[in-house]
């Protein structure tokens, strides 16, 4: 597996990370080194193995349908980089 600059650019855009053009080749090399190393996993026979996720042995607990949170507009807005009245504000989105 080998990541070219175009792929790195696409992944960076998917992750919304600005990467200056001149850093793409070096970053691609680093990522390639990591991916190459990761690829030893292909040696492992995983036929018939169920993937593990978290502590899969447990069943999920459920919460009761009670409103006990959320009436705190100032608290949720207090760290906002930009707010207008009781809204978060972002550059206008044209749909």
């Amino acid at each position, binding site marked *: 597996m080998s*990541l070219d600059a175009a*792929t*790195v650019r696409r*992944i*960076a*855009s*998917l*992750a*919304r*990370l*600005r*990467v200056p053009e001149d850093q793409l080749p070096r*970053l691609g090399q*680093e*990522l390639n*080194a*990591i*991916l190459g*190393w*990761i*690829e*030893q*996993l*292909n*040696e*492992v026979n*995983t036929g018939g*193995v*169920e*993937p*593990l*996720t*978290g*502590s899969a042995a*447990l069943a*999920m*607990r459920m*919460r009761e349908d009670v409103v006990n949170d959320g009436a*705190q507009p100032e*608290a*949720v807005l*207090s*760290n*906002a*980089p*930009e707010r207008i009245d009781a809204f*978060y504000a*972002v*550059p206008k*989105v044209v749909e």
Partner: protein
Amino acid sequence: MSLTELSIAEARAGLDRKSFSAVELAQAHLDAIAALNPRLNAFILPTPERALADARAADDRIARGAARPLEGIPLGIKDLFCTRGVRSTAGSRILGNFVPPYESTVTANLFRDGAVMLGKTNLDEFAMGSSNMTSAYGGVENPWQRKGDAATRLVPGGSSGGSAAAVAARLCLGATATDTGGSIRQPAAFCGIAGIKPTYGRCSRWGIVAFASSLDQAGPMARSVRDNAILLGSMAGFDPKDSTSAERPVPDFAAACDQPMKGLRIGVPKEYRVPGMSAEIEALWQQGMAWLREQGAEIREISLPHTKYALPTYYIVAPAEASSNLARYDGVRYGLRVIEPGDSLDEMYERTRGEGFGAEVRRRILIGTYVLSAGYYDAYYLKAQKVRALIARDFERAFADVDAILTPTAPSAAFGMGEKMDDPVTMYLNDVFTVTANLAGLPGLSVPAGLSAEGLPLGLQVVGRAFDEETVFAVGAAIERAAGFTARPVLRAGG
């Protein structure tokens, strides 16, 4: 004895006897921070006013005879824990101005039990690193130095490097930390202190900035195994706000430290003799086996056949989860926003995240995004979760025959600041012995067990069955007793 040299148990006893006050205890540590932190950079944010206010409240309760289990004990809090009203950065520029309006469950538990907060300790950015060098707030210096080499500054390990250095340098009696691949145990080993990553689900993750949700687990760091047991007793417990929190009672961990070794079966995995492991680490490991055997334990060689695949597995699972967990840092609701006139929403996202995250975090987000992207999910993420299941199965089979597993904590002693920085994979190899416990969700404790030829601390790791921290503490305490580790770092309070 100097107040900064006390164990937590001694400090509690001294406070109750009124040999000293909580304010005096806090002040001694604040003085140490003032003296040493400019060099060590172990604390991102010391909170002296808060510490003294906490301490005064503790003195009140002690005076009223209403002292709680950790009344007046001054702690460092890893800056990955959200603390209400106190800036919490996760070691990142992107959270440089973030003041949480809530308190993490683990720190809330500690404060419920009377602990005093001295400040927020430094860490690798978003806990991603093994050196503390990725922190946006600068590296942390390990208070230990190589024999006869005061010029080379060493890393404390990571990601909980600030907590480890602070505890080792006597800037606090204990600290909170987190461990996703070895972030408690490796810095504990590098700094000559003890630290435990409990079983996944033992401590609530609520209010801890997430790195990789299925691997992250909070735990304590302190200078003795018993102090770890005392701290974990307060930190642990079921939390209905965390769906992965275990609904189990918290045992008396401190009592477990006194359990005898007689009749215990200790496994030594043959696959942990990795190529290039130094002779002194190998020797220390053998020494550990001998100590346990002398105390009545039986040493058995075991096999964990998928060990060599643990790190590559980890470096798929952890970045994948991180790439998603860190998507919320977008400059909309909190944290840094970087924007130029005329930027669209997407440009604002890209600028904010591109400048807000450091190189290692960006690298892991990219890896994680890539391994989850269309066409690669099965080959990487799904494959890794299957190998992870095999790793967990290895442990399950091993624990049919043994009660705990003994390994070295890290493949080397602390290295110099700036070393191993060129190649990410070399840095990742630091976690080779620790990462398996995260993948399998098992408890792992690092105990200082000896010094390298260069005079640097080395640690041994004890891994136990899920939710059997008691045996882990017992074995760790037995090693600690036998090792008689009394060496202290060069840079320390009163040193």
